[in-house]
């Protein structure tokens, strides 16, 4: 019972985190001040050290992105509602989507709103949908932007994106946040160009994570599509090996956490948004996504809450 929490056991590069911690990992993170509770599951403040780890990790990704000639764009964490409607996100993930509502009434409506709050009744009826929804994945705002610019050049396009994303899935697992950051590199072009891009990251991703002395494994994966029909979509996605994830043990060894994902969209977004190549064919796309909070949590889980005490070799990779 008084044993040192396994999360803080100094780890050899090949050692995996112990399966069951003395207490839930989320409680550890609150106690050590790495995360700050808000009162709502999945919504947390981040410590300076946590943010610094994310910053340092991002410089590693950015180095590759620059070498590849990626164009860097950061979108805000909201996007036009019409674009979510058109994207098909609500067909596949209605349970995860978040939309922005605001008060648009008069003085009398304002009184009713305040009365409802005072009485503890539903006040959301006094709010109306705005033109905004919360961004569900960093690449969603990109496709309409690319489509509006005209044909995709013969060499294809490459972007380095980052955004806070929202998914409504409150959880006690610190790795399942409602607001989190996703860094994404997106390739748009021919089937061959985007497949090459994904292959390259399928090699690079595990190398990058292993350089941080984190155990990891690649696996075929599927998105959490909604409902019974979603099961069919998930199987389709798996059968075609459209999605791979790089899994790292964070909450437990038995259920490692997807920290990177490697997705081939075929011509799904090309067709949806009318992204065409110069030869008139629909553009294909692929992306690699980095769950930045998840990667930071994996590092804190493996190497402990005090970044100064992390293995020198890991610190060297991150801080140089």
């Amino acid at each position, binding site marked *: 019972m008084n044993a040192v929490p396994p999360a803080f056991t100094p780890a050899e590069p090949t050692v995996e985190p112990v399966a069951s911690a003395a207490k839930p990992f989320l409680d550890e993170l609150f106690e050590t001040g790495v995360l700050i509770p808000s009162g709502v599951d999945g919504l947390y403040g981040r410590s300076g050290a946590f943010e610094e780890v994310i910053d340092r990790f991002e410089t590693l990704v950015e180095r590759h992105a620059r070498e590849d000639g990626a164009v860097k764009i950061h979108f805000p964490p909201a996007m036009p509602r019409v674009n979510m409607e058109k994207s*098909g996100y609500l*067909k596949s993930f209605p349970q995860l989507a978040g939309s922005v509502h605001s008060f648009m009434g008069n003085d009398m409506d304002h009184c009713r709103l305040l009365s409802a709050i005072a009485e503890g009744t539903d006040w959301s009826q006094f709010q109306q949908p705005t033109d905004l929804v919360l961004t569900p994945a960093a690449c969603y705002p990109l496709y309409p932007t690319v489509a509006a610019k005209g044909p995709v050049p013969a060499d294809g396009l490459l972007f380095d994106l980052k955004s806070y994303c929202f998914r409504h899935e409150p959880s006690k697992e610190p790795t399942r946040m409602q607001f989190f950051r996703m860094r994404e590199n997106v390739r748009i072009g021919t089937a061959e160009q985007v497949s090459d891009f994904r292959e390259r990251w399928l090699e690079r991703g595990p190398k990058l994570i292993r350089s941080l002395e984190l155990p990891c494994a690649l696996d075929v994966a599927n998105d959490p599509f909604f409902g019974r*029909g979603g099961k069919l979509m998930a199987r389709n996605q798996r059968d075609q090996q459209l999605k791979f994830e790089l899994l790292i043990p964070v909450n437990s060894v038995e259920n490692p956490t997807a920290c990177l994902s490697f997705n081939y969209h075929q011509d799904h977004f090309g067709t949806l948004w009318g992204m065409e190549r110069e030869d008139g064919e629909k553009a294909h796309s692929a992306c690699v996504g980095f769950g930045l909070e998840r990667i930071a949590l994996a590092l804190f889980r493996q190497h402990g809450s005090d970044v100064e005490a992390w293995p020198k070799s890991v610190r060297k990779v991150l801080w140089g």
Partner: protein
Amino acid sequence: MQIRELIGSHKIIPVPVDRVGDEEDLYDLGMTSFASVQLMLALEEAFDIEFPESMLNRKTFQSIASIDRSVSELVSGRA
């Protein structure tokens, strides 16, 4: 045949369904993953059946013939 009518009326594939052979691959003809879900739901309603989880895969909805086999199996199982 009712399956063809459903494929046509729900615009499951971007080509005329009467020119599609029974064994032709509907995915190759442009049926998207989401269209296959729409087709699944339409078939369930039309035939008053429910596809079990074991049948919720790419193969079941691959061709008109494979759909026919699965639907027949479920309809006869119900009777």
